[in-house]
């Protein structure tokens, strides 16, 4: 038992003496988090674009139209800038905005009198989502204008003619009120009711897309670390440490247990560091930080033993590395490290969640979301680690001799 500690200290010392490797391990999650934040932004990141408006009308209709883009959630995505026609055309040609809207002269008059008017929208061909949104909003607004004409056309035309006296304005108000009251039977209660159903597990996760990607990415780092540490068994085999170990009374069980504990501590450090980086850089919400770190370390030990078994089954170091890469790459792809399960085709996601790393990612996500501790999951991993320790210990001793 005492030798387990000696063996752990030996492996930790060796890891500590290799600062490049340590920095690489800590760098992988940091680098991934930075890249994701740069690409997708922090937290609830949304696309952001600019709408250039050429207002040649200068009337109330144009003001209402421009103002519609500054309302509610749209204002977070689209910023409005009023420009002259020439400047607007020049800038949209330069790709300086998502779209250019030209509101022609006498647009308001046409709107009030129910005459035809033509709005011109020029889209930036280099963008897709934002010009689509702007076009959809504009289309909705023109539809709204059409229905307004149907409901209150005469009143609007009266207003356009210029009812200046108090009695005229009062008359107009009363008529407008009647028109609205007549419409109430269609509007209240609404004849079509939209029922919204929130599907469990499909709610928007806080932290945006970067945070959605990070648990899987973190496991990719864990997998790489596990693979890297597992290759050490080949170095020890090559320079004769395994043979020497076989001639001592200590035994391979203690030897391997020491390596496993050292790996656990390394993964504990990397897990804590990775989650902290993900939290501060990408706004990843972590409901239970200690449990999440513990889960990463324990499940990472399972992956380490899995990689070590592959290493010890190979006939040469070269074959061992090829075998590891052959297994590691598809597993990380399927296991949610390259694409989150939420974005995968359903069939692939189902298969991916069954891979050792995919299952670990799913469980980690549950812990991050604040789900209750799953003793069955921990028991399964610990059982896997114990079984792996026995099998790998036997296999390493066999290859040593």
């Amino acid at each position, binding site marked *: 038992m005492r030798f387990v500690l000696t063996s752990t200290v030996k492996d930790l010392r060796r890891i500590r003496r290799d600062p490049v490797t340590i920095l690489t391990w800590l760098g992988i999650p940091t680098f991934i988090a930075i890249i994701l934040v740069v690409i997708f932004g922090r937290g609830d990141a949304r696309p952001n674009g600019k709408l250039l408006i050429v207002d040649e009308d200068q009337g109330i209709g144009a003001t209402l139209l421009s103002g519609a883009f500054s309302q509610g959630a749209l204002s977070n995505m689209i910023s409005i800038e009023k420009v002259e026609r020439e400047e607007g055309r020049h800038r949209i040609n330069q790709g300086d905005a998502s779209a250019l809207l030209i509101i022609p002269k006498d647009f308001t008059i046409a709107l009030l009198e129910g005459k035809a008017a033509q709005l011109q929208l020029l889209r930036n061909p280099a963008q897709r989502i934002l010009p689509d949104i702007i076009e959809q909003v504009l289309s909705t607004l023109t539809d709204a204008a059409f229905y307004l004409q149907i409901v209150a056309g005469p009143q609007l035309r009266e207003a356009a003619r210029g009812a200046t006296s108090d009695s005229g304005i009062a008359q107009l108000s009363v008529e407008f009120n009647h028109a609205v009251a007549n419409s109430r039977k269609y509007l209240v209660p609404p004849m079509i009711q939209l029922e919204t159903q929130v599907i469990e597990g499909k709610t928007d996760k806080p932290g945006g897309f970067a945070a959605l990607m990070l648990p899987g990415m973190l496991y990719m780092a864990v997998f790489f670390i596990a693979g890297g540490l597992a290759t050490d068994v080949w170095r020890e085999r090559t320079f004769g440490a395994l*043979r020497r170990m076989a001639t001592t009374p200590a035994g391979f069980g203690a030897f391997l247990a020491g390596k496993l504990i050292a790996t656990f501590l390394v993964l504990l450090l990397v897990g804590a560091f990775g989650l902290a980086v993900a939290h501060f850089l990408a706004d990843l919400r972590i409901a239970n930080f200690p449990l999440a770190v513990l889960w990463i370390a324990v499940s990472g030990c399972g992956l380490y033993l899995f990689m070590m078994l592959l290493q010890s089954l190979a006939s040469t170091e070269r074959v061992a590395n090829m075998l590891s890469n052959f297994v590691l790459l598809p597993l990380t792809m399927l296991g949610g490290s390259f694409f989150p399960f939420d974005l995968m085709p359903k069939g692939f996601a189902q298969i991916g969640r069954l891979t050792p790393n995919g299952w670990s990612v799913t469980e980690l996500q549950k812990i991050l979301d604040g789900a209750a501790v799953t003793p069955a999951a921990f028991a399964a991993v610990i059982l896997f680690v114990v079984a792996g320790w026995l099998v790998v210990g036997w296999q390493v001793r066999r290859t040593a001799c």
Partner: protein
Amino acid sequence: MIEVAQLRKQYGDVVAVKDVTFTAQPGEIFGLLGPNGAGKTTTIGCISSLLTPTAGHIRVMGHDVVRDGVAARRSIGVVPQEIALYDDLSARENLSYWGGAQGLRGALLRDRITEVLELTGLLDRAKEPIKRFSGGMKRRLNFACGIVHQPRVLLLDEPTVGVDPQSRVRLLELVRDQAKGGASVLYTTHYMEEAQSLCDRLAIIDHGNIIAQGTLAELRALLAERDLLRLTGVFRPDAIREALARLEGVEIIQSDESQLSLSVSDASHRLPSLFAAINTAGEVRGTTLTQPSLESLFIKLTGKELRE
């Protein structure tokens, strides 16, 4: 004490060691001399319980290495052929690890580490990562890791391969010290000089068989104090046999068209008559005369040089 009886190790159809029997007493250095691939490392592997014998019995300090492996391994110190050390650890850390693997701990381990570092002349470099060490220093540390727990049985598998002469002398002194301290030492080598100067008793091994065993004096007696005369040139083997049959005290060890090895008593005084006889059956172009030694014994027993 090491007791090996009728040891046999077989890999499929290949027999690496067959019916090897010997005993190494406490305080004795027992040498296992043979060329590469003779079965020396396999024998050490079986004694150190690294390999499981196919047949036979091995006892170390009374413990059967198969049935009572852990107890046997507690008595054994192994100095392997390869430098089985962690390059990124210091000398002290390596000793601490391998001493720990042998069951040492605490103050005893610390004291023993200092002792063996002093013994091997590495005390002043104890804290350096050993990747900065020379080959000779690594060899000495490799040895130190094998003796840190004061084993009663020390197995050394060609520990001086690739070592500079100074380090070799130092290592051999260290081995002698271990034997003087009461350890049974099994020393494998293919360097005859080492075996001659170091070992109390020797076994010559070839193709997995022990072909001769005894003290150096006993082995030399097998040569009957004869010199070894090796000739190169162009020979007719049948005619040579006929020509030399007339001379007394001459034995042909090996003969072909280009080489001739003879065991001859008092060869230096009989060279003229030998050349006269040989020249009737060929032409001599080169001559080597060797005094009775392990090499001449090996050639006599196997018909080939030790390094072949």
